[in-house]
């Protein structure tokens, strides 16, 4: 029991005094965060507060202006970091001529696979993932023929096919129906038994049910070890976000703060 607890404390990524932005426009200032194995961190905060920017810095898409992102040993394999990434669905061109299995297999691409064909074992795993996600039957369909939820499933398979240690999701609940949303979160809970998850969302209700800790991002970052979101907490960190409750009729209450 003791040993098992210890594995939960293995640090994967250390973000130290990170400042990032685009050219002169600084989005995040002096952010520090440690992501451990088996973490399930919900990243919340207002639009334009820097949630996506934080993800991009972790993914290496944005170079830090100050500070650093340190990857611990188990996070690196060959020449890439073991991170699975699920981008916002509106970053994807849904008319692009590509099939579901091509999308999923593209997650296997790495420097040494540029010419060399994929490992059959990896392809088998991709098939298994598609099967688990319920999209194996439509693997040869073009993504233009799919629903939002089906595309999200394909993108989730792509993010997982390389067997990452950390899964990073950017607002996976946009443009999907409620049924898929619930299914997705249950899947994430299951995945979290093996890997760490960093989930960006504006959907506070779901976040507090599933995540283990919360990072509130609004130009700076405040980390909360628990998953309880109180109005006081939100007020203290200027984090206006929507709260969704599930009654007979789903409704949304917006907490707005004075500027």
């Amino acid at each position, binding site marked *: 029991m003791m040993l098992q607890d210890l594995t939960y404390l293995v640090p994967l990524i250390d973000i130290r005094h990170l400042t990032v932005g685009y050219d002169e426009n600084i989005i995040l200032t002096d952010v520090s965060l440690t992501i451990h194995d088996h973490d399930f961190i919900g990243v919340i905060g207002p639009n334009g507060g820097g949630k996506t920017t934080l993800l991009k810095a972790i993914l290496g898409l944005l170079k830090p202006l100050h500070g650093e992102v340190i990857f611990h040993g188990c996070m690196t394999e060959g020449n890439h970091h073991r991170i699975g990434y699920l981008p916002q669905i509106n970053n994807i061109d849904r008319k692009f001529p*590509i099939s579901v299995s091509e999308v999923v297999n593209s*997650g296997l691409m*790495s*420097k040494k696979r540029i010419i060399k064909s994929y490992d059959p074992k990896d392809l088998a795993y991709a098939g298994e993932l598609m099967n688990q996600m319920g999209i194996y039957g439509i693997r040869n369909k073009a993504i233009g023929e799919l629903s939002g939820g089906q595309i999200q499933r394909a993108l989730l398979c792509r993010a997982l096919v390389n067997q990452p240690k950390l899964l990073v999701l950017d607002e996976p609940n946009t443009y999907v129906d409620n049924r898929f949303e619930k299914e997705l979160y249950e899947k994430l809970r299951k995945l979290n038994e093996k890997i760490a998850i960093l989930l960006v969302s504006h959907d506070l209700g779901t976040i507090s049910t599933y995540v283990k800790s919360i990072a509130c991002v609004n130009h700076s970052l405040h980390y909360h070890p628990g998953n309880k979101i109180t109005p006081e907490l939100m007020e203290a960190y200027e984090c206006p976000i929507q709260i969704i409750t599930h009654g007979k009729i789903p409704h949304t209450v917006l907490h707005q703060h004075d500027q």
Partner: protein
Amino acid sequence: MSLLAMNFFRNALLASLLASITCGIIGTYIVSRRIVFISGGITHASFGGIGMGYYMGFDPILGAVMFGIFSALGIEFFTRKADLREDSAIAMLWALGMALGIIFIFLTPGYAPNLMSYLFGNILTVSLTDLMLLSGLTVVIVAFFLLFYRMILFISFDEEFALTNNTPVRLFNMILICLVALTIVLNIRVVGIILVMSLLTIPQAISNLFTRYFHKMIFLSIFFGFVGSMAGLIFSYLYDIPSGAAIIFSLILMYGVIKLYFVGHKALAK
């Protein structure tokens, strides 16, 4: 048909085939990746090089190659760095190339021979050099796409994700945009600056009516491009009209007929 005409026709046939292959592959890439406007910019920028060739007395196509490659790499580099809005920057480049070309040609003493063939193309006067250059490019493009097909598809679909996998995205972008520039410039002799963009987009638009897969779009685009070029050649021969315009007209006619068929088919099914 005289022997001389036969010779012309054989060259024209070969030029159509090579143009269809290069434009079929590269056109599918630019249409899928939505960089048609960028390609338009490169096309018109290359006119500056043609003018420079006339003025300085070297092969205008060589000038077009230089201007094409420079503007392609310029767009690739600057749209990532500078604050300029991408589409405005490309529109400026587009106009600059045309303006430079006009100035150079105006400054060139005497008559500028074949100027019309650069603007509107003439498949019947493609030289052996043109054909050899186009053959070389065809071999390079086919080999590149065969070798790196998955990587090209992967980057075009989601460049950001490709970057997170630590693959050489910038290098591939650079090579691909150069291949786009070369395809445009070497096909200028076939259909001309004004019309080359349509050879890169109409066959793809027709293919898109039949398929939603990248590789099938390439093969179908080559096929429709070739059929359109052949039909255009025959029109041009029968009615004595410029070949470039005849080819584009046949392609658009093909698109219209097939689209109408699909629309009618759907309406009947209901």
